[in-house]
């Protein structure tokens, strides 16, 4: 990430938009603080008492929301981190000592232990290619394992009855209320800023389409692991506070059932919103406490029914639905996200080494005994636009896949500017200079056009954790597509409202915004009108001519291939059968035979348009 870009975007942040966001959060935070100060004087002791517990649990629920609601990691195990914090408090105060120093030590130990466990869980669960279910399996195992560890701890952990009666601070109830409330308000405000920042959009992108994120150079696994670690730490702080206040730690605090309850609170309140889970947790927890005496089973039954109804019918949760209803009642439109200002990115000087941009040597791919690619070898020079043609099933897309993900090929070597691709995952391949566009437009339906474009800049620019940048810098080629296809006027529109052609154009602009040196395009013009196709053809040829990029294009439309290519490779049944200039290949007898099969009409060399 370049330092210059950092200072520049900071200077630009002097503009009104991010500050407005911060101001809004501060205003709401101040209101919450005012409520917090007054509340203990208005409410009765019992309510304050149960509210304190609910406030600590709400902070924990927020961590579940960030992981599950925003990032799409269904975690059953957030209770484990809560339990670690709680046991750090109970164990240190019971066995080692009590006092300000010990309290700080216990808290630090709890946070560190939780973060270490978070790191282990993240490393286990978030490897490249892991299924989303595997994270759920690991986070389900975690609280079960921890609970058994507590059981096995004998007198040290208090086994199944836990620890109680250890020395703690017997402050007035108001003081505990203010501590718990201040902690929750702080966590909530930080969470709001975080999820609305540029980094917060990355989380949503991971939830919507994790694979595409990897092909935009976003290190998905590392981000998820870090998130797990930080959320674990926050969970430990709430557990510590909870234990220090209640003066009891029990195995239930670390258990799988609390983990599932957190999911219920977040789902009912509204996953993927910040305030929903907070209010959901507090409301359900306080009501539970009131009804646990009179109607314990019926209340839990109602929660179960509400949970199923919400998951089936209102997956966004109750609070967002209420908000929608309220807006309809007041006839207010939801506030549009402000569009950032487009600017050309400073062009980066590409090292002009002697090495060829792309060398493919003997690449093979088989699935069991099925050989999809065999002995594929070719070179691509700078400023070449190489088209890959061949009938369906020839292995073109498989070849593209082998060039953009080091794990894909079964044999052979891919060398990019002298560097071996090895077994690197797609996000590392992007760092080598590869940009891949998928056959079907694969973008994020719920993000805006500007947000999608910014995602492609992750590798090149610093992403703020607490604000949305008002500037969007794009390289010239991407800017050209954005302005020529009318996307520039639609930056604040959610992608699902775009036409098919605009989606394809946005997808291509995202690939070019990566500033790749080798562009892999899988049928970029499929389903486009003739004008759209010609525009894209023009942009591609000028990229190759002016910026000397190497473009590898999979294409069926031989007309289009003839117009823009500098060289053509013909593939058939997993092998390269021809490699030559446009004239040599397009008019060759072999190509006609392959395309039409012998004895049929000649291939549509000039007739598909």
């Amino acid at each position: 990430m370049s330092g210059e870009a950092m200072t520049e975007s900071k200077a630009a942040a002097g503009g009104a938009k991010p500050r407005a966001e911060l101001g809004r959060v501060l205003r709401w935070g101040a209101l919450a603080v005012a409520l917090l100060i007054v509340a203990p004087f208005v409410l009765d002791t019992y309510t304050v008492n149960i509210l304190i517990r609910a406030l600590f649990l709400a902070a924990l629920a927020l961590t579940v929301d960030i992981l599950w609601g925003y990032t799409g990691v269904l975690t059953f195990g957030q209770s484990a981190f809560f339990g670690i914090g709680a046991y750090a408090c109970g164990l240190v105060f019971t066995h080692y000592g009590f006092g300000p120093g010990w309290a700080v030590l216990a808290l630090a130990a709890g946070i560190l232990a939780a973060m270490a466990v978070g790191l282990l869980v993240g490393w286990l669960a978030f490897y490249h290619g892991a299924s989303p279910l595997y994270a759920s399996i690991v986070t389900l195992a975690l609280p079960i394992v921890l609970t058994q560890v507590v059981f096995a701890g004998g007198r040290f952990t208090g086994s199944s009855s836990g620890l109680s009666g250890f020395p703690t601070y017997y402050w007035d109830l108001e003081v505990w209320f203010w501590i718990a409330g201040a902690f929750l308000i702080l966590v909530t405000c930080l969470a709001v800023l975080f999820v609305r920042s540029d980094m917060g959009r990355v989380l949503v992108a991971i939830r919507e389409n994790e694979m595409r994120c990897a092909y935009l150079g976003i290190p998905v696994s590392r981000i998820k692991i870090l998130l797990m670690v930080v959320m674990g730490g926050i969970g430990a702080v709430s557990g510590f506070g909870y234990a220090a206040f209640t003066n009891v730690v029990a195995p239930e605090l670390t258990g799988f059932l609390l983990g599932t309850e957190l999911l219920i609170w977040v789902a009912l309140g509204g996953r993927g919103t910040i305030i929903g889970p907070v209010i959901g947790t507090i409301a359900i927890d306080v009501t539970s406490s009131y009804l646990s005496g009179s109607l314990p089973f019926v209340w839990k039954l109602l929660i179960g029914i509400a949970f199923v109804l919400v998951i089936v019918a209102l997956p966004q949760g109750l609070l967002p639905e209420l908000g929608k209803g309220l807006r309809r009642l007041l006839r207010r439109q939801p506030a549009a996200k402000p569009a950032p200002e487009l600017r050309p990115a400073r062009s980066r000087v590409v090292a002009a080494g002697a090495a060829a941009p792309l060398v493919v040597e003997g690449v093979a791919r088989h699935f069991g005994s099925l050989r999809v690619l065999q002995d594929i070898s070719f070179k691509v020079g700078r400023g070449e636009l190489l088209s890959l043609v061949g009938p369906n099933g020839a292995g073109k897309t498989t070849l593209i896949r082998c060039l953009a993900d080091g794990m894909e090929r079964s044999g052979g070597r891919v060398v990019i500017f002298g560097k071996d691709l090895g077994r690197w995952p797609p996000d590392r391949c992007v760092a080598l200079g590869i940009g891949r566009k998928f056959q079907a437009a694969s973008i994020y339906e719920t993000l805006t056009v500007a947000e999608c474009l910014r995602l492609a800049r992750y590798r090149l620019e610093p992403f703020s954790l607490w604000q949305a940048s008002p500037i969007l810098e794009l390289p010239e080629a991407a800017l050209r597509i954005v302005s020529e296809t009318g996307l520039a006027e639609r930056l604040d529109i959610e992608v699902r409202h775009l036409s098919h052609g605009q989606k394809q154009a946005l997808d291509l602009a995202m690939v070019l915004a990566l500033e790749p040196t080798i562009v892999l395009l899988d049928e970029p013009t499929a389903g486009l009108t003739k004008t759209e196709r010609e525009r894209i053809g023009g942009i591609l040829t000028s990229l190759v001519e002016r910026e000397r990029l190497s473009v590898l294009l999979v294409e069926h439309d031989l007309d289009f291939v003839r117009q823009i290519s500098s060289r053509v490779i013909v593939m058939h049944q997993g092998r390269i059968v021809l490699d030559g200039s446009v004239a040599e290949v397009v008019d060759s007898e072999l190509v006609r035979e392959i395309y039409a099969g012998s004895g049929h009409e000649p291939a549509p060399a000039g007739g598909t348009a």
Partner: protein
Amino acid sequence: MSVLILDIVTTAAILFTVATGLMIILGVMKLINFAHGAFLTIGGYAAYIATVAGWSPWAAIPFAAVVGLVLGLVVEYVIVRPLYARPLDAILATWGLGIIIGQLITIGFGREVQFVEPPISGAVEFLGLSYSTYRLLLVLVAVVIGAGLTGLLYFTRFGLNARAVIMNEDLARGLGIDSTKVRLATFGLGAALASVAGALITPLVSVDPNLGLPWLVNSFMLVLASGVSIPGLMIVSLLLGGAQVVVSTYVSPIIGGLTIVVLAALILRLRPQGIG
């Protein structure tokens, strides 16, 4: 030593029997039924009702099957059907269903532990040892269930349709297979199997509203580690169930309770597709 082997084999048989209902639903519907534990509990209470009504303990098993089947069909229609495209949400909705069933049972029968009449009690001489007749019988039951499911999948019209849906649901639909019906039948079958398993384990565990919970987690882990296949589930039940017995016997029962969960999670890290 022989006792250990018998313990391993009978434990594996019990785990296999308990997990099949979850597996058949995951295999055909690609859906994880977290209400599986609640269906086990329902089976346990079906056996309890049979005891209270004074029926033969053997009658508890068909009774549990019918209750499970009917409930499974209703649940598929009402809750599961809208969630086909949202697999993670289906886990949550079926978990919520489990809460509902658990609370209804609590309200109906109370939280206390219930007594159920076992079909057979006592021990038999086997390989020169005196061993629980009922546990040995469960090995036979597991073999019958495994063979029955294999037969159902490979020698019936339903099995052919189900296998078509497993391999490629869109194509199966294109060939005129009513995949909605296959799904409905599968969920009913899975729920009935779970309920029967719940009735079968009642002589070994106490019947209370949370009967199914520990079995749910172990079944879930075993089914995923098995690679969702009948022989795979047999192998995994033997391996991980065996490890559980060995650790419980020689190390500690508390750590033994973790063996399946931890080993399955590690197996899946090394082989994400399971051992099958």
